[in-house]
């Protein structure tokens, strides 16, 4: 891998990615709104290149310094990376209702989180991939941590990549207390491919 392939995205590419994420999010919001029958408030996507050391602090800054639940899910294909979905707020019964669990279901909260995360990730990343004309698939989601500090979710020494692209969006449901942050992390050896896809997109407009 040459140094050139690892350079950060240019400002134009970042702008484009932000707009594409915005579009992807919008599609996700509308789909989620449809299946949950709820109006979804969406934030403006934020994008940054981060050294791995600064990822825990960035996560804490974004989601706030209180304990959270988090789920991770990988996507792979012509672009690949991982998505961390961080949940704050959201009472169990609200989630249960959204996902159609019966009252008597003594299903674990964990499964609820996995389901909700899967829907958010699928809808949002699906939208981005579609705009970028990228083919992607998803791994099954898994629980990263329950009731822990956001700073402890990702430990820098466990990361494979020295630098990562960090894309964050926030979903809130208008009538429910659920809030979730969706953080897409892409390793630096993916920057090049992503940059190319973004250039193709830029050339098409």
């Amino acid at each position, binding site marked *: 891998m040459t140094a050139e392939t690892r350079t950060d995205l240019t400002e*134009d590419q970042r*702008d*484009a990615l*932000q*707009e594409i994420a*915005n*579009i*992807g*999010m*919008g*599609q996700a*919001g*509308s789909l989620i*709104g449809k299946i949950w029958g709820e*109006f*979804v408030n*969406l*934030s*403006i996507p934020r994008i940054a290149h981060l050294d791995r050391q600064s990822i825990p602090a960035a996560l804490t800054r974004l989601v706030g310094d209180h304990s959270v639940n988090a789920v991770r899910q990988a996507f792979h294909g012509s672009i690949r990376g991982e998505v961390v979905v961080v949940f704050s707020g959201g009472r169990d019964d609200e989630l249960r209702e959204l996902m159609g669990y019966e009252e008597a279901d003594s299903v674990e909260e964990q499964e609820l989180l996995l389901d909700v995360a899967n829907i958010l990730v699928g809808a949002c990343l699906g939208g981005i991939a579609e*705009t970028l004309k990228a083919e992607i698939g998803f791994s099954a989601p898994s629980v990263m941590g329950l009731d822990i500090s956001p700073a402890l979710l990702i430990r820098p020494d466990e990361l494979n990549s020295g630098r990562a692209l960090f894309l964050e969006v926030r979903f809130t449901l208008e009538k429910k207390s659920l809030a979730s942050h969706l953080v897409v992390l892409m390793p630096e050896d993916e920057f090049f491919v992503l940059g190319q896809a973004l250039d193709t997109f*830029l050339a098409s*407009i």
Partner: protein
Amino acid sequence: MAVSVLVVDDSPIARKMLIRALPSDWDIEISQATNGIEALVAYRAGKVDVMFLDLTMPDMDGYQVLETLRKEDLNCLVIVVSADIQEKAQERVQNLGAIAFIRKPITAEGLAEVLKKYGIVV
């Protein structure tokens, strides 16, 4: 006389995409704003006939712009261009006085269709 068009979006790419998609034979003067506050400043400073308005923006979002326009009884044709394509969002902006809603990503064909439908461009 040329029609004055204001494009309001925080994303430079989105503004660029929109401007590219405008009909080439349309006699217009284009100005741009990156958030709601700038949009209102531009509006009050001069004539705006048609406003293309994004919804999610920092500082002042599209909903707030629409509310202000309506409260101050300002009139111009507002076409919302948004990635937030939830039906409720479309309903809300139309209730706030937007004449049309165009979903992102914008295409020249889609835009032309809307402009024709509302008789802005014949």
